[in-house]
């Protein structure tokens, strides 16, 4: 039985992927957002192979230079190449966003699925805890945690994950409640699967579409949070560039070199916007019932 379903799963998933992109291309906004994200990610991760200037190389004589062939986007206050910093900074920003999302899904998914599937007092404790975490000023806790635990990229990822998993937990919780009553779950139970196996093999796969939507929106949120933390000087520390700390740096030179502050902000805004539109499009695709009224 389980082999059969697995075979069917594989087949539908490849067919699904094709028709998925076909469907996606009909939703212009989401498709544009998807293409944009593809381009940005390629540029940021492959760009440094082409534009090989060191983002941390200081050149005070050429500080705050304008746009030129040598420095296509000019230089910052220490004469560092802005284009190169945008690319390397983008890598960190996007990786932190992606990493945070990964841990957010892990924590939120686990809590939501366990609470929904096992019910009873486990449900009460876990979901009350989730509600509690939603109603406190998390950003303050995040700042406290970063002050104490240090400002390495890994810590930042963990802090963002631990302060933003609640949304996903609630989504997964709701879905798990819905699916655990279905016949195939009952069948699996009757056939003697352990609860863990039923949860992992039969319930979780049903929840994945919702998780994908929530995590796309989660990346957007994580990128915004990271940039805010970096801006406050509590995130990844210079000279390592991120889009957030480039803005912090730029604000000091707003009177003399206003253009420095524009690029990183535009980059953050567009990427977050694209993830939001892409996520909304995915939601419409994967869950037509839930699409916007």
């Amino acid at each position, binding site marked *: 039985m389980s082999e059969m379903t697995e075979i069917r799963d594989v087949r539908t998933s490849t067919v699904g992927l094709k028709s998925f992109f076909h469907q996606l291309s009909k939703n212009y906004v989401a498709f544009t957002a998807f293409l944009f994200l593809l381009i940005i990610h390629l540029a940021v991760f492959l760009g440094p192979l082409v534009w090989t200037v060191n983002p941390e190389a200081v050149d005070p004589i050429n500080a705050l230079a304008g746009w030129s062939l040598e420095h296509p986007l000019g230089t910052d206050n220490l004469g560092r190449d802005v284009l190169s910093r945008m690319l390397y900074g983008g890598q960190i920003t996007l990786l932190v966003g992606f990493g945070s999302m990964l841990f957010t899904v892990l924590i939120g998914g686990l809590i939501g699925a366990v609470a929904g599937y096992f019910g009873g007092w486990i449900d009460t404790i876990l979901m*009350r805890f989730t509600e*509690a975490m*939603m*109603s*406190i*000023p*998390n*950003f*303050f*806790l995040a*700042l*406290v*945690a*970063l*002050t*104490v*635990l240090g400002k390495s990229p890994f810590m930042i990822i963990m802090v963002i994950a631990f302060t933003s998993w609640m949304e996903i937990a609630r989504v997964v919780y709701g879905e798990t409640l819905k699916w655990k009553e279905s016949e195939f779950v009952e069948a699996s139970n009757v056939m003697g699967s352990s609860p863990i196996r039923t949860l992992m093999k039969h319930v979780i796969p049903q929840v994945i579409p919702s998780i994908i939507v929530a995590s796309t929106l989660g990346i*957007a949120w994580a990128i*915004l949070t990271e*940039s*805010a933390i970096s*801006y*406050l*000087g*509590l995130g990844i520390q210079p000279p390592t560039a991120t889009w*957030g700390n480039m*803005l912090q740096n*730029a*604000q000091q030179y*707003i*009177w003399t070199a*206003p253009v420095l*502050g*524009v690029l*990183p*902000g535009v980059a*953050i*805004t567009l990427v*977050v*916007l694209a993830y*939001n*539109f892409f996520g*909304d499009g995915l939601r419409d695709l994967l869950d037509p019932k839930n699409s916007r*009224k």
Partner: protein
Amino acid sequence: MLQFAIKRLGQSIVLILIVTMITFFLMNLAPGGPSSMMRMDATEEERAAISEQLGLDDPIPIRYGKWLIDAMQGDLGLSLSSGQEVTDRILERFPFTLQLTMWTIVLSIIFGVLFGIISATNRNTWKDHTINFGSVIGLSVPSFWLAIMMILLFSVQLKWLPSSGVGEGSLLDQFKASIMPVVILSTATLPTIVRFTRSSMLEVITQNYIRTSRAKGIKERTVIYSHALRNALIPVISIIGVLIPRLLSGAVIVESVFGWPGMGRLIVEAAQSRDYNLVMGVTVIVTVLVVVCNFIVDIIYSKVDPRVKNMG
């Protein structure tokens, strides 16, 4: 009603305890404990003296207990960086944050509900699409960057508004100084209220009693603003509870950008100077504020919509 209130009150107290506990233990995770947070140049003896003076030699749970007993009597200890009482430092900053957040929430509700209604009643027209698009943008722009751009435009280029501070002297100066912070802070709350009002309104206007009042020939304006809005606003009250933590988080950033001397900037200063007691104090006060606001919102909500309290 009373039972509901008592239950919510109990939950609120537990919540405050949990947050203080997390914060307290987190602070003690610092390598070398909180004494390492003080002046780096302190000698071994000075450090030991400070530790003893602050009672840092006791085990963590005992210290937490002591801290809790003091805190309940309104004593949050001394700020390590300035030597003032933590409560005094918070009290001198609190009015500025209150001013900022009050204006933001009032304006967000007025404009949010208005845009939400326009969006719902003009569903799938260019007005609706523009408002929706605007909401997504509002949620996607990093607020500090928008703030920097506004400073660039209104302070650097046009010289209309001050780039930082609360404005000195006349009422007009104070008003001018608070325009940009309030507008920026609204980007954190306005889109959510718009979206919520829109979907709630859409749900209400499909109901029978609205069709009945239209069939009776009542003016469309009266139907929307006096019949539909009243019920559509009920869920919007509940979202305000959710927005308050976000508002205070937003205040941290907005206050930092505009040099606004509120509690958000205080926690950043405290975090940067590793002022152990102050960080603890601000976090606790902010949590209590949020929890109290949520409590009030819940009580109002259950008064307005009697179905809620039965769901507990």
